[in-house]
């Protein structure tokens, strides 16, 4: 679950909420600061952190944090 930890840290940094705890089930509806603008910043920070690039479709299809982490894990193992 290293990926989730790292993603959580990125969420805290970008959303400026040091107490934020996310789980695989978390969606944007659960986190007040997670709006469309911050979403873009999250994606960019995650891409930089894990040194990877998502396709337009991948970004579009995530339903929750879990799917985001799955996509990262898939890319890292590829």
């Amino acid at each position: 679950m290293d990926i989730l930890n790292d993603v959580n840290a990125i969420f805290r940094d970008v959303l400026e909420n040091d107490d934020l705890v996310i789980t695989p089930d978390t969606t944007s509806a659960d986190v007040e600061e997670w709006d469309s603008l911050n979403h873009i910043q999250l994606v960019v920070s995650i891409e930089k952190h894990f040194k990877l690039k998502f396709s337009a479709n991948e970004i579009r299809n995530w339903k929750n944090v879990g799917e985001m982490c799955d996509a990262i894990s898939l890319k890292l193992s590829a």
Partner: protein
Amino acid sequence: MLIDFQTLKSQAKGIQKNNFKKAKIAILGNYTTQFLAKSIEYSGLKHSLEFEIYNAEYDQIESEIYDLNSGLYNFNADFVFITISSLKLQSKFYALSAEKKASFCRDYITDLTNLINVLNSRIKTKIIINNLEILNDQVFGNFYAKVDQSFVSNIYDLNAGLLQLARTFDNLYLFDLNGLIQYYGTRHIRDWSQYVNADLHYSLDFHAAISEKLVAFIGAFLGAIKKCVIVDLDNTMWGGIIGDDGLQGIQIGSLGIGKSYTELQKWIKQLKERGVIVAVCSKNTESIAKEPFEKHPEMVLKLDDIAVFIANWENKADNIRAIQQILNIGFDSMVFLDDNPAERAIIRQNLPAVCVPELPEDPALYLDYLKSLHLFETASFSTGDKDRTKQYQEEAQRQQLQFTVTNIEDYLKSLQMEIVIEPFDPMDIPRIAQLTQRSNQFNLRTIRYSEVEIRDMATDSSNYFTCSVKLKDKFGDYGLISVLILKRLNSESLFIDTWVMSCRVLKRGVENAVVNYCVALAKNNGFHQLVGEYISTAKNDLVREHYPSLGFADKEGFWHLDVQNFKPLIHYIN
């Protein structure tokens, strides 16, 4: 490479606003500008500027400007940044008929001219428009120039049209977006998947790059200008160590990697011609350090180009303090170039206001890196600027004379000063505007004026009296060194709206001569008193006691001088 949006954000979050200069910026874009707005705010804080931002709705440039009730007209912007994305323009262009495509540029410039005229008729502001990204859609390939309905052709024409607009409208400036895109490369400025998903026209990080450059430019209007570049010599201005390698051994010009240094010197020479002061600060024996300047045929910079030359074995922080004393400019207007990280660290620690670029290790990269920092943005240029170095050299001679004369009266008399005080001459307006923008220390109210505003006041003789002051002495011509704008308050009082003076002529008695002139002017026009005001800033402590020292009396925060009972002040200027 590309500055990071997230890093910029966290840098800005840690900054305490402390007496920052303020400005209001309206952003009108034909694309989503939320990130740009945030980024401009962050970059501002980094440069000690506090911006209030009005970010218009997406693609509402026309309605914001035409509609008198728009948010723009409620906002009172100091700057209006009109930002146009070529991607958006392209989709509008594609929807046009062949005939309309051919006249696209003409139509667009006509519309824009109209918009600017309307905006200017309603508010007084500075307008900044980006030049348009050269977006080659590859529809006509390299045949584009032959086809008036190719998008690329139109973009080039539009940029030429924008250039023309900037020459036509005094208050319109062109932001060099293309220069920035060229520097970072088209592949880094856009994230196509974010464009598809979120209609983000530029990558997140490129917004930060835009704001850094834009804020440097806006900062120049607000007086945040670098006036002086101080250079180290060994391995900064040439390769090798002059004391060890000798005249034949240092790398400059065709020898070794000399080209790196030659190119840098050429750039610095161009800056000097523009009016940036060049000073030397080197750990060397002075005579040896000067040798290349005097004798090396491939040196671009000559001793004539250097306003202050300090080469000794003292520590560089003290030497930079000495340079600051002679030039009499703020530390925050100085840039220090040194290849040695330890020297850079010493300056950063001792003189944190001095800008010390972290030069790359490879000298071949010095110039490219320096150009990326937008250090020498300026909001004005006058032809007198290039003489500034000569003036500082003359100043050094004056300082020597001062040592040989024992009392100040004799010294002032021996300078054989001549002064000319007159209403603003249209030829001088760029220099006058520049003085109001650049002067920080001898500036009583620190109101910055553009050339347009100065021109308006100069022609409004029923409300304003203007004075420009020029001084010369036996060592040379100072040129235009002081500016006063006097405003009619009522039939009795003449208010000193602006009084700025170049610090180079402090303690010469210029103020006394100016007050005598102003009193005569006030009397001749039937006024009873001159009224002055001192508005304190972080930098103008120098003139806190200015009005009382000239005989003005305190009245509820303003300084009054009765012109009827005034006894002319003593000075030694003819």
